[in-house]
């Protein structure tokens, strides 16, 4: 399957891929758009936070007969309870007040108290980053990574490379390049979210926020692996960038439905089949990635990597037999 220097070739292809992406206007535009959307949504999130503060403050003011806690007022002790802002800016601690709707959202995401206890001590902007990354990174991957091999087929540029290295090395280099790109973009998006939060939140602390980002960013990267695998599977077995992107988006939809099916057809006689198929969908492992301990997160992360390997392997199985 591999030539005498597979790692060198994979590295060469990945490096070339990254250099080409760096120079490609289209790729830069997509990445810039993703980062802009991430920044904008982070800004909206902070504004929502501000609105939530108003909602929470008013009843307090009504009960106490005051205008609510002012600057330098009492703060909660030893936990992320509601704390007043030193200025007009909202507080990130607000999110975890008992009345916060964000807490309700989290409660829907997590199923156990240990995880909930872990999450409520994390900076909310980091949780927001994890949540939105889980939602949007698959789409980013399908748009950017799906065309990488297919484009080479469309232009027949693959023919310059095909005589110089094995097909597996070529594809794995492309996959590695795309994986590194996703890692870089998601890290930048995280830093951007933190910057937006620091600019807008009164009690934002960079230290805990960065450490939380470093805790969650690897989870986002690993979560992206099977999606990169799916995109490459589609890319390997289509003949144009357009068809690769379309098939990758369809594949994404199919994986999402695969994950929804067990709940939708819980009473059906096919429920065991749907439950088994669910293991093939990366969405099935998403909830596990919210857990606090690495030993709890490790298994789903390994399974996600394995799923990525399976997708790429299936793609390669057919790709090695196709005409270039």
């Amino acid at each position, binding site marked *: 399957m591999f030539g005498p220097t597979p790692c060198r070739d994979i590295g*060469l292809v990945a490096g*070339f891929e990254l*250099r080409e992406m760096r120079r490609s206007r289209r790729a830069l535009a997509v990445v810039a758009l993703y980062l802009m959307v991430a920044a904008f949504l982070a800004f909206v999130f902070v504004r929502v936070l501000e609105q939530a503060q108003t909602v929470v403050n008013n009843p307090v003011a009504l009960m106490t007969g005051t205008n609510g806690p002012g600057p330098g007022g009492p703060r909660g002790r030893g936990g992320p309870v509601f704390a007043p802002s030193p200025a007009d800016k909202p507080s990130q601690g607000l999110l975890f007040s008992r009345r916060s709707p964000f807490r309700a959202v989290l409660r829907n995401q997590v199923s156990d108290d240990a995880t909930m206890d872990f999450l409520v001590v994390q900076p909310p902007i980091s949780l927001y980053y994890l949540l939105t990354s889980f939602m949007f990174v698959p789409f980013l991957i399908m748009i950017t990574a799906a065309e990488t091999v297919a484009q080479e087929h469309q232009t027949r*540029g*693959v*023919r*310059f*490379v095909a005589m110089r*290295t094995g097909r597996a090395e070529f594809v794995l280099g492309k996959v590695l390049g795309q994986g590194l790109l996703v890692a870089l973009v998601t890290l930048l998006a995280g830093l951007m979210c933190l910057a937006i939060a620091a600019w807008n939140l009164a009690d934002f602390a960079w230290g805990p926020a960065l450490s939380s980002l470093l805790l969650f960013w690897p989870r986002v990267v690993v979560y992206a692996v099977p999606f990169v695998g799916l995109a490459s599977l589609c890319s390997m077995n289509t003949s144009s960038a357009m068809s690769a992107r379309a098939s990758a988006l369809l594949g994404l939809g199919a994986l999402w439905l695969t994950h929804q099916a067990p709940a939708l057809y819980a009473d059906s006689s096919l429920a065991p089949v749907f439950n088994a198929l669910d293991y093939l969908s990366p969405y099935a492992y998403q909830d596990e990635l919210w857990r606090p301990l690495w030993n709890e997160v490790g298994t789903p992360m390994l399974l996600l990597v394995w799923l990525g390997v399976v997708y790429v392997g299936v793609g390669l199985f057919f790709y090695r037999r196709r005409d270039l």
Partner: protein
Amino acid sequence: MSATNGGSALSLRGVGKRYGRIRALDGLDLEVPAGSVFGLVGPNGAGKTTTFAIACGYLRADTGTVSLLGAGPFDAEQHRGRITALPQDAALGRDLTVAETLTYLGRLQGVPSREIRAEVRRILQLVDLTDRAGDRTRTLSHGMLRRVGIGQAFLGDPELVLLDEPTNGLDPRQAHSIREFIAAQRGTRTIIVSSHNLHEIETVCDHVALIDRGRVVMAGPVSAVTGRNDEVRITLGAGPVPLTEIRAALPDDQVTWDENTRLIKISFLGRPGREAEDVTSAALRVVLGAGARISTVTRGESLESKYLEMPSTPPPLRR
């Protein structure tokens, strides 16, 4: 150049390939001698590009056997670094510079990192693009891109190079320079050239195969295919035709006369030790002595004439 089985750099036996209902290759047999510059000639749709693609491993043959450098069909492990190609209509990446592109392909080819800069410089000089090394490939003209394509095929030290329409889109000076370079490679490596330019094939190649409807209809040394070494043609102007005198002077050769074209054809095929120069001299002595007027004297037929003798090609076969 490494040794190859039976002296063939490329051997195709009974190769067939279909695209749906269209039969592109129909039991094609081809032997390319190692060290030769081999021309592949044929009309559009004859199967030249498909033959190339199968030889390069881009396509898989439906039937038949392929052997490259005596080691079976293309296999990256066996053949990497030993075979290169200039594919037809394949585009290089557009966003990197010429030097970066050549560096990437050269490194994949197996050129060591410490040698790659010198190798890229050599190739850039070869295709006269040194001054464009730092330009992105998207800014190059069609002809320049073609030259980069030719250059990448000579990166490293490949034993077999396949060039599909190499001078297509080049200006006459560049085309001449590339032709001279290809011809100079004779004996050092095997080069297969596909081209519609028959003059190019005739001047550059020492072996040729004519392909039509997915089969080789004629193949061999260029001199044999054109009759360059076994036939002399003399076209006469108006005036006497000393046919009897020529036959008397060359009793062992076959002399024919075509009234319409006023062509005397002297064939000495299969006569060992007989050289075209001797036959030409003897015939001309007779013709000039008889006071005949000579329009042209040629050795054999041009490749173009041979090509035009092939029946016109119908659309690809459908079954």
